[in-house]
């Protein structure tokens, strides 16, 4: 006698505490939403962990928590973001992402319809990237103890032989390559924030970059010193991080950095600098000067790197300054953002 369960009322139902209690309701939620959306043999095996075979050699592992607010934004949602973001952190090691895990922390009362939409986006993103979500976990917390849903994804990948990208590998003279226009993700999300409300035709750039990275590695893998995806804190934070880890400085050319007009406009409106705004489908690569041209050409031939450009180069600098030549011919420092609090008046 199989236990009968009422179907999940996805259209009108909410996540309640029983969906996290380890009983049948939880199994039903996981089956009816996550397994259905992610659909693969690993999840179907129903273990607490999932197994796979690797060839041996260097691997990488990464994790990120996603707490974006609002959960849905132009160009994606927390689910697609959680897939792309972790794939990208794997890809930034020049690794080929293999598998993902996903841990959900859901607030009591969260609409099942929204959860399904998020899970479906994850399924689409993961299949699109060819990186399956092979294991997961679901917790439900009381109303007021989370913010809708939080997702932590982790991923593993394999590093092609002979590649070893390191945060401290940038050398004076190296080229700094940016894969495309900046600020799209952050502005798309901010445009939907309750307290900032504005409308902008800006769509998050959220995308999985491992295909672009593969193209770059083929064109000049050994010439790539390191890569970073400029997420929280924007390219300003990324460049400063690299500068201090590699103990070098950067000279960047403002005019070489692509910014979409709508993004620039929204930045004006909010009084923020696009250099500080988050991206979710862009990368910054530091490459040996002799490899920059080939890498750049390979990037431009890839759909996610069409606007790629050399935006500056590495200099020796004990102060690890990231300096930028402005479009005026003046110079300025590009600093970390000191924890910007929006909205501002001045």
């Amino acid at each position, binding site marked *: 006698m199989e236990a009968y369960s009422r179907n999940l009322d996805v259209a009108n139902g909410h996540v309640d505490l029983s969906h996290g209690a380890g009983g049948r309701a939880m199994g039903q939620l996981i089956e009816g939403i996550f397994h259905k959306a992610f659909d693969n043999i690993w999840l179907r095996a129903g273990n607490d962990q999932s197994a796979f075979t690797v060839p041996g050699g260097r691997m990488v592992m990464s994790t990120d928590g996603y707490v974006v607010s609002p959960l849905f934004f132009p160009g994606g949602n927390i689910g697609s973001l959680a897939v792309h973001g972790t794939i990208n952190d794997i890809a930034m090691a020049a690794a080929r992402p293999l598998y993902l895990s996903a841990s959900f922390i859901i607030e009591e009362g969260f609409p099942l319809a929204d959860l399904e939409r998020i899970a479906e986006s994850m399924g689409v993103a993961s299949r699109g990237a060819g990186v399956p979500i092979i294991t997961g976990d679901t917790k439900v917390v009381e109303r007021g103890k989370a913010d809708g849903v939080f997702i932590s994804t982790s991923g593993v990948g394999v590093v092609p032989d002979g590649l070893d990208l390191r945060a401290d590998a940038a050398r004076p003279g190296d080229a700094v390559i940016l894969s495309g226009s900046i600020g799209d993700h952050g502005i798309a999300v901010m*445009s939907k924030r309750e307290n900032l*409300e*504005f*409308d*902008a*035709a*800006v769509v998050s750039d959220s995308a999985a970059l491992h295909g672009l990275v593969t193209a770059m590695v083929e064109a000049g893998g050994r010439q790539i010193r390191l890569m970073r995806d400029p997420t929280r804190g924007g390219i300003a934070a990324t460049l400063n991080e690299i500068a201090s880890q590699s103990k070098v400085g950067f000279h960047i050319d403002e005019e070489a950095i692509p910014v979409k*007009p*709508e993004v*620039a*406009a*929204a930045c*004006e*409106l909010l*009084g923020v600098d696009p250099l500080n705004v988050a991206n979710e489908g862009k990368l910054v690569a530091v490459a040996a000067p002799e490899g920059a041209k080939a890498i750049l050409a390979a990037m431009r031939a890839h759909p996610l790197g069409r606007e790629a450009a050399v935006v500056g180069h590495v200099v020796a600098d004990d102060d690890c300054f990231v300096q930028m030549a402005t479009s005026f011919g003046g110079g300025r420092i590009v600093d970390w953002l000191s924890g910007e609090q929006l909205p*501002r*008046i*001045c």
Partner: protein
Amino acid sequence: MCLAIPVEVREVLPDDMARVTLDGVSKIISTALINDVRPGDYVILHVGYALTKINPEEAERTLALIQEAAMGNAT
């Protein structure tokens, strides 16, 4: 101080409000501090309020003055 930028009025709304845009970015603001707002007007926006209108002729004139200054002609 005083983050403020020129935006274009697109729509005049009830209660002294208006929809303004800046290169495709749009926002609802208060126009209670100025008079006779019309679509097509440019206003200076600060903390959600239009502070004043932009005078298009004077703006033209400023640009002309800047051009002249750049060429070394005294204002």
